[in-house]
């Protein structure tokens, strides 16, 4: 069996001599290049779209900042000072040049957007990482248990729970969690306002409820997908028959062979879901008073603070694009057919 595994791992892909030649004109590198280019286009498009939408809206920022009693002269002067009187392409160009120099500009209160992001990013990063890691881990365990015996008790239970997760609105589920675990049982605090401060204890204490609210729908999606894929692999694929014929235990077939192949679709969905995850994070952060960029985004939209909105949207888009890119590359790493350019997709 050890020999069989070695053969499977190496896959006959030659020694180091072969490797050097492969890198130079490798389809994998070309794939990476193409994807990077596409990612840049997407990033540019998102920032442009955000800028266009924000400048298409009625512009009363100066009026709002100065209050009701401002004279038209004061409003004009402030508009000029903020650069809001310049046409949209000029403003966008200035912003873009700034971004390429690593400077996201200043928000309406005069603080640098870079430092605002740096201050609020850790809490969001912790929350998203907790939600993602937790939901993925639980989904893999539950899906494997469920796929072991399709239509068995574990399978039906997992289907019911994941249907609930798919159908529950995150904000309603979050309120339910707060009522039960924070108010009635008192296990967790209602507010998570020191998330992102770095202490492990506060991370576990304050991060659990918001991460559970964010992660439950994700868990549902991942479990359904992985379970369906595992069941199909077990029923249809020839390599499963081979593995069984080698005398592997059902558990080993399931985990070493089927799970490994089913990870492909899971990885894609994780990448694709990042965009929606970020939208949900804004509401959950506001609900739990997490000092992250999601709740900051909601405030910025209320204040029509365009530079801050732009900065946060850019970060969100960057994460989404990078997640998709990583999913594509993981595919290439895991699937030799793509690495050698043999696949048509």
């Amino acid at each position, binding site marked *: 069996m050890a020999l069989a595994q070695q053969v499977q791992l190496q896959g006959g892909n030659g020694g180091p001599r072969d490797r050097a030649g492969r890198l130079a004109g490798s389809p994998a590198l070309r794939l990476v290049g193409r994807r990077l280019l596409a990612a840049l286009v997407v990033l540019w498009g998102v920032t442009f779209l955000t800028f266009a939408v924000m400048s298409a*809206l009625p512009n009363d920022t100066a009026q709002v900042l100065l209050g009701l009693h401002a004279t038209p002269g004061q409003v004009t002067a402030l508009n000029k000072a903020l650069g809001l009187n310049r046409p949209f392409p000029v403003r966008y160009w200035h912003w873009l040049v700034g971004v390429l120099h690593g400077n996201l500009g200043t928000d309406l209160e005069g603080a640098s957007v870079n430092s605002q992001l740096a201050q609020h990013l850790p809490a969001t990063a912790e929350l998203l990482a907790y939600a993602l890691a937790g939901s993925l881990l639980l989904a893999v365990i539950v899906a494997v248990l469920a796929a072991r015996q399709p239509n068995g008790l574990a399978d039906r239970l997992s289907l019911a729970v994941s249907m609930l997760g798919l*159908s529950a609105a995150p904000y309603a589920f979050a309120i339910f969690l707060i*009522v039960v675990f924070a108010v009635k049982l008192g296990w967790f605090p209602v507010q998570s306002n020191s998330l992102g401060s770095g202490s492990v204890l506060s991370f576990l204490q304050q991060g659990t409820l918001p991460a559970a609210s964010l992660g439950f729908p994700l868990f549902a999606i991942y479990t359904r997908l992985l379970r369906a894929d595992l069941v199909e692999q077990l029923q249809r694929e020839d390599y499963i028959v081979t593995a069984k014929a080698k005398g592997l235990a059902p558990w080993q077939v399931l985990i070493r062979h089927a799970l490994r192949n089913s990870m492909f679709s899971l990885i894609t969905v994780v990448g694709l879901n990042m965009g929606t995850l970020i939208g949900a994070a804004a509401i959950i952060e506001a609900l739990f008073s997490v000092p992250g960029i999601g709740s900051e985004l909601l405030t910025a*939209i209320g204040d029509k603070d365009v530079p801050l909105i732009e900065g946060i949207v850019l970060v969100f888009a960057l994460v989404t694009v990078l997640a998709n890119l990583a999913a594509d590359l993981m595919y290439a790493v895991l699937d030799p057919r793509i690495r050698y350019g043999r696949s048509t997709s």
Partner: protein
Amino acid sequence: MAAPRPEAALPGPGLLAPGPPLLPSAGVSPRRLASQRLGRALRLWVPAGIVVLILATCFLLPLVTRMPSPTNGNILDAGDPPFSPGHWLGTDPVGVDVFSQLVYGGQVAFEVGLAVTAIGVVVGGLLGITAGYFGGWVDALLSRVVDILIAFPALVLALAIAEGLGPSEVHVIWALSVFSIPAFGRLSRGATLVVRDLEFMVAARLAGTRGWRVIARHVLPNILPGLVTFSLLGIGIVIILEGALDYLGYGIPPPTASWGAMIANGQTVLTAQPEYVLIPSVVLVVVVAALNMLGDALRERWGVR
């Protein structure tokens, strides 16, 4: 007619494999078979019945019975518990009937859900089929547009539109369509790519059918089941998102009832009277779960992957 590909000549994955469960009836007793058939029927008709029942309650009930106003109440009735006379689900803290709010809020939720999904299916479907069928630079261009829309946080746009143009049902529909169009676009592009190279397409092209005629007669019928089952899921997602906008105060403007606003208002008296949050939340879960289960059942019937 093209020669059959070698793998097409062999049905299923060879003799040794257990084979796909093409006939679940093989070796099953008639009694078990009947129960399986019953289960299949229940999986379709129970959620379908729930959806129809809730739709009828939201849209027909107000027409045939006189219901208390969903926006105005009597302050003397404020905070009636469920099963009070005249208000069988009780009233909220300012005396508005909870059941009426659910019914009229449901109208808004379904209107927005159906409109946004319909826009997504038509516009996104057209874009996706065009990209998938024609390929080349059309595909590259449309796919990038779809990528940009997917990476663009729909919530930002929705909030910005509500903030700039003022909240209204039509603006909510506009804003959420930006979310549904790329989703359906990506789905129909993928489905079209799968269908495009199948043998009957080659046959259709050899028979002289071209361009849009192929799409209308051969591509569309084949990807439609996938679009329909996904759109049931989509309606559920849109209803949740619409509720999120209402919840944040950027959705349907206040005097009009909406499920999200009910949850947000109930949150203020959460510890004293949790039923104000509980009732709309449970209704939301039941509606979305019924739509999801209906989608699953149809997928099972039509063999959509």
